[in-house]
């Protein structure tokens, strides 16, 4: 056993589900206790799906422990009839795997034609695989099964974008940014895999001239498999930053023979390089930054911050452990410390030790950084509800470069303000420093106003009201007491007032 407080990655079955259910027409059946079913809530809440989530639990109950069969066939039949998927992916949580139920046997025993959907059990391990590795393997396996041999290349240059999914970090914006940019250079998108890829598109996966990705760690097995089968070349690097995006398009241009002029024209809207030369950005030079993210994002972003914004990259890291060597290789030119760990406390200690000017990390680094009073921009999963914006917030491509510039801009203290603070010290000092931090906990009136007095019991009770509504509650209770000429507020007054005003 190992003590865990918080993890960067979800269990393997979440990786399988995210990957499988992102394909159009694919539904996942998860064999697990219903308690493992919180992944359905993530689909419903984060993606704000107004439909049945693409995941059904085949619930393992107390009856199962007593020997009842899994009866997975019935769940499969229900899903098949009700939702009509083309493929059902069956997987199990670690808990269900421990039980070693003969699911495959049950599935093989199903009457031919009983279930119209194709049934696939990805070859992932519920304990040894991580969310990332299980995702990557599942995508590869589904693509490999469906893709047809002997498909000719498309007439015009085209790519598959591999990696984006449901519950992915800003994935929909990233795909839009890539699509827009590829259209500008005359490259069509053969398929976005898995997000929305239909079986018809997957059959023709081999028709793309090249494969590109939004996250190498999610795409690598598929890249390699498609290369084996169709000799499709791929671009490992993700287009982060303006120069990085040009470099990406140049690499792609080498494979697809895209005219350079077209690439230059596609970058017309990019402003990061110019921003870096403007007065406001001068303060960025030598600013110390730490980046902790997924491997692709960590490598890409560190390079942008170092090379395109002239910041000093003190630390680059990732929690995807099997990309340790890859990340080190990518960071050689940056002369920076590389940290590969899945323990957030180790990352927090490194941040504490280095005290960078800005941290780029996950939601967890945002919390760690705020403990040390450091600004932080969230740039990587695990995704939080805040990473499912209603609007367009890409991280990659030319549009993503602009957004990154804004992010840096908003996260750090700039230009003139910077100098004023250096000279006069931070704000919120001086005579206001004595006030309660946010004014939430002060009594609204003093006895001098003729306001009712609070006895100890009432004071204690009101102290238990959550701080963000306490002030309002106090005001209401005092108004209630004053209206009734109650001189001393006791517990009964607090309760009566609450009943009177509600809340």
């Amino acid at each position, binding site marked *: 056993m190992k003590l865990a407080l918080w993890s960067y990655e979800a269990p393997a079955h979440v990786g399988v589900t995210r990957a499988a259910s992102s394909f*159009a027409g694919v539904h996942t059946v998860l064999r697990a*206790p*219903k308690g493992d079913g919180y992944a359905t809530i993530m689909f419903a809440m984060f993606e704000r799906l107004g439909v049945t989530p693409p995941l059904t639990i085949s619930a393992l109950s*107390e009856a199962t422990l007593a020997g009842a069969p899994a009866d997975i066939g019935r769940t499969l039949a229900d899903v098949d009839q009700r939702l009509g998927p083309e493929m059902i992916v069956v997987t199990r949580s670690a808990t269900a795997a421990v039980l070693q139920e003969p699911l495959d046997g049950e599935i093989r025993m199903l009457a031919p034609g009983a279930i119209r959907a194709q049934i696939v059990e990805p070859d992932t391990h519920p*304990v040894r695989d991580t969310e990332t590795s299980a995702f990557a393997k599942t995508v590869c396996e589904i693509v490999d099964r469906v893709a047809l041999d002997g498909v000719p290349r498309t007439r015009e240059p085209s790519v598959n974008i591999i990696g984006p999914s449901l519950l992915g970090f800003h994935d929909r914006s990233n795909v839009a940014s890539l699509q827009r940019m590829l259209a500008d250079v005359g490259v069509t998108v053969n398929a976005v895999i898995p997000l929305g890829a239909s079986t018809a598109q997957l059959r023709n996966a081999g028709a793309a001239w090249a494969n590109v990705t939004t996250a190498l760690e999610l795409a690598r097995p598929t890249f390699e498999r498609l290369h084996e089968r169709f000799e499709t070349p791929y671009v490992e690097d993700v287009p982060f930053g303006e120069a990085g995006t040009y470099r990406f398009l140049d690499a792609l241009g080498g494979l697809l023979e895209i005219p350079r002029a077209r690439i230059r024209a596609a970058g017309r809207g990019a402003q990061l390089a110019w921003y870096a030369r403007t007065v406001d950005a001068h303060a960025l030079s030598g600013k110390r930054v730490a980046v902790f993210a997924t491997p692709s994002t960590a490598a890409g972003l560190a390079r942008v911050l170092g090379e395109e914004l002239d910041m000093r990259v003190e630390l680059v890291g990732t929690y995807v452990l099997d990309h340790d060597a890859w990340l080190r290789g990518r960071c050689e030119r940056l002369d920076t410390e590389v940290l590969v760990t899945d323990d957030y406390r180790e990352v927090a200690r490194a941040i504490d030790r280095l005290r960078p000017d800005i941290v780029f990390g996950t939601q967890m680094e945002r919390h760690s950084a705020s403990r040390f009073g450091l600004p932080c921009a969230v740039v990587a999963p695990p995704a939080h509800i805040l990473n499912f914006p209603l609007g367009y917030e890409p991280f990659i491509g030319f549009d993503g470069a602009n957004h990154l510039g804004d992010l840096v801009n908003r996260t750090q203290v700039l230009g003139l303000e910077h100098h004023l603070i250096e000279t006069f010290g931070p704000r919120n000092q001086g005579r206001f420093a004595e006030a309660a931090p946010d004014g939430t906990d002060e009594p609204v009136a003093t006895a001098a106003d003729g306001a009712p007095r609070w006895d100890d019991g009432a004071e204690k009770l009101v102290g238990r009201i959550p701080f963000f509504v306490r002030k309002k509650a106090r005001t209401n209770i005092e108004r209630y007491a004053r209206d009734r000429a109650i001189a001393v507020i006791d517990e009964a007054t607090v*309760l009566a007032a609450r009943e009177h005003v509600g809340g």
Partner: protein
Amino acid sequence: MFDSTADALGRDDFCSLAPIGWLHHKMQDAFFLVVGTRSCQGFLQTALGVMIFAQPRFATALLDEDDLSGRDTLTALLPIVQSVVDEHRPAAIVLGSTCTPEILKMNVGGCAPALEAASGVRVYPARLDGFDASYTQGEDHVLAAMIARAPEPTEPNLVVLGCLSALEEAEIRLACEGMGVPTPGFLPSESALALPPIGPQTVLIPVHPYLADACAYAARERGARVPPVVFPYGPDGTRAFYEGIAAAFGRAASFADRETAAWAACDRELAALRGRSVAFCSDALLELPLARTLRAAGVNVPFVATPRVYRKFHARESELLAGVDVLEAPDRYETFARLTSCDPDLVVANLNVANELEGMGFAVKWSTELSFQPIRGFAGAPALFGLFASALRRHQALARTTGAVGSAANPITLDFFRTPVRSAV
């Protein structure tokens, strides 16, 4: 068309680890150590979200392959408990056993005495699994473990069982003082070590409809008297609750005037609700008392779905709800079919299905909020009705905008996902 056996499609519920969310706020000196998989850890992290960041008082002892292949549980747990004690200095540890230890028959609970002896910190063992229990029943199991450690009473006493806010506790305490019954002890209280005496002289009164096991345990193992109760939800339920306490001590008390006053205090909320219809999807076992008080308030309740009706424990609530259809453990699609046929003004549903039902065109009140808001007692009644009334008001206000599923602002739509690729039969 679909049967509703326990393993039917789409039983929408959370894991019974969920009550750690409120119990660790209530018992400020307790640490919750969960023995389980990365999935348990992921659930705690996802469901309890940012709570981990302030001062983590819960963690998972992740099972590894050695544990799965039969390593001695106590040997594995000892250093983990010790590190929790060293680092967090809790007054007590709630040791949760989850699905996997149950499958492996690890007997995590059986390690509690030895862990307690070795660490010097009290250990309460509780099953917090995600098999069949409704998510609120995690509290039930923790409280049962605490009852096992309560001292014997030396005189007749009253224990109020169930996690409450300070405001709710204060109301109950004042009401009991007014009736001349013993001042109640509360379980849980702010300290995981402060246990009220429980024994044959104890009248034990549960405040939540999901505490059947703890009550049964207290009656069976400690000889406590657990009278049948109406739960203190809404003015009607609160009156019956208090009068039931008085009766248990052989006293007559009338809360008729208090009930009338409390209804009057809810006037604004009730005006929005009266004559409307509210249906309940199966969720936290709170459905029966909530439906009962809504009906008493003049709301039409076409049906109530709930995970389970306890014949004895819910007897009085069931009586008061006579005439309303109660669906026990229905599956998702059976519930949806009922909703479509009765088309209520408001549907109460948990986070699993809330967005889906909104997408189908229903006005939804998400129910999870109801299990951690202070809505019990007379003083809580306006808040209770307010949660339903504000959901209705909000839907009326939003009806002026077009809230179609999806977002026009997002350049990539999920339309591929909304229409089945081949039509369902």
